[in-house]
């Protein structure tokens, strides 16, 4: 089986942050010093785990994982997972995690002085449907301070993890909320090339908002698509 016969996934350009991003101090001793070696995609890279779990009964609703409802603004987060060719990515596992409404993570390493919420853990999982759509219910996370620099605050965000249908499509990212005044000060958000930052920001979605229940935010996630030209290469 030759490489040329296999689908190749487009390589990202002007999209991902450089691993060496001095404004985000934790990159300092963790970013590789050597450039990665560019290798053609082979079978291991154009295949990938097509996982349907683990998903528990309330993993799609982070407000129903405990005895009572958590504090904060209930919201719906919905959108579509697609590839950069515009094709939906069906039946793919979407994993999310986030801080509570006060901006505190239910994690032993998070010790800042905001209240934990006994009714909120902040982890969720869903599968996209046949059209690549996902939806989950949660509370809007709060902003929180961190130690990166003086008076550093992370804009409110939800962490997302996606598999797609190939090893090359694996993506971990963060979804932000519209018009956050903290964007201008956040080195993680700003590590992304300026023209691509808006792709991480959800939009308010009146159509998906449920009357007398929860406002909705829409966020589509775009994974690497296939380079169609490779299919047309004659067998060498």
């Amino acid at each position, binding site marked *: 089986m*030759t490489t040329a016969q296999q689908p190749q996934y487009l390589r990202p350009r002007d999209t991902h942050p450089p691993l060496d991003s001095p404004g985000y101090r934790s990159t300092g001793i*963790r970013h590789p*010093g050597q450039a990665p070696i*560019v290798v053609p995609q082979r079978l291991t890279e154009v295949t990938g785990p097509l996982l349907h779990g683990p998903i528990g009964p309330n993993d799609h609703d982070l407000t129903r994982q405990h005895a009572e409802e958590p504090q904060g603004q209930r919201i719906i987060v919905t959108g579509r997972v697609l590839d950069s060719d515009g094709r939906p990515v069906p039946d793919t596992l979407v994993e999310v995690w986030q*801080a509570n409404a006060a901006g505190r993570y239910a994690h032993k390493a998070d010790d800042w002085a905001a209240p934990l919420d006994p009714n909120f*853990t902040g982890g969720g999982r869903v599968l996209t449907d046949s059209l690549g759509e996902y939806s989950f219910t949660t509370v809007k996370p709060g902003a929180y301070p961190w130690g990166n620099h003086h008076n550093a605050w992370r804009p409110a965000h939800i962490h997302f993890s996606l598999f797609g249908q190939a090893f090359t499509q694996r993506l*971990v990212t963060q979804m932000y909320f519209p018009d956050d005044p903290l964007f201008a000060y956040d080195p*993680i958000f700003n590590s992304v090339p300026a023209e691509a930052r808006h792709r991480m920001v959800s939009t308010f979605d009146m159509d998906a908002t449920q009357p007398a229940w929860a406002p909705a935010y829409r966020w589509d996630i775009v994974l690497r698509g296939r380079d169609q030209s490779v299919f047309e290469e004659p067998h060498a």
Partner: protein
Amino acid sequence: MPELTPSQTVGPYLRLGLDWGADGTAVVPAGTPGSVRITGIVTDGTGGPVTDGLVETWQADPDGRFAHPEGGGSDFRGFGRSCTDGEGRWEITTLLPGALPDQAPHLDVSVFARGLLDRVVTRIYLPDHPANATDPVLALVPAERRSTLIAQRVSETEYRFDIRLQGADETVFLDV
């Protein structure tokens, strides 16, 4: 056409969303005939352990087939996931992959961590495998760095693969 979504770091609290515990590390259940343990330490540029990282593996089954319609449709999950512990250690229990038509047996590896704004990707090869000499990916790696991609055999059932993100003997990372 839709524009690619940028990557962001998993941050320090990744376990809230990505920790599968024993289900993640058990590519096959412990005790499965032929299973091996692959374990190692993830370290930063100071040699210190990365205690808030995540290592994921993807591989073929012993016959060289993947759990994917384009890879032979194996029923072997082929996917492993391990959060690093307080010493930076990760581990999986799996079956050794078979050779592919044009490649030596290997596992693809993704590493995520606070301080990594995108995953880094590497490969685990098996020590002393004759096909390593002709593997097309190893051939692209400078000879003096190739050893960073080859696991050490600890015993018949255990291999060690350390991942050094930065510094002397930095692991070779791949742009796939």
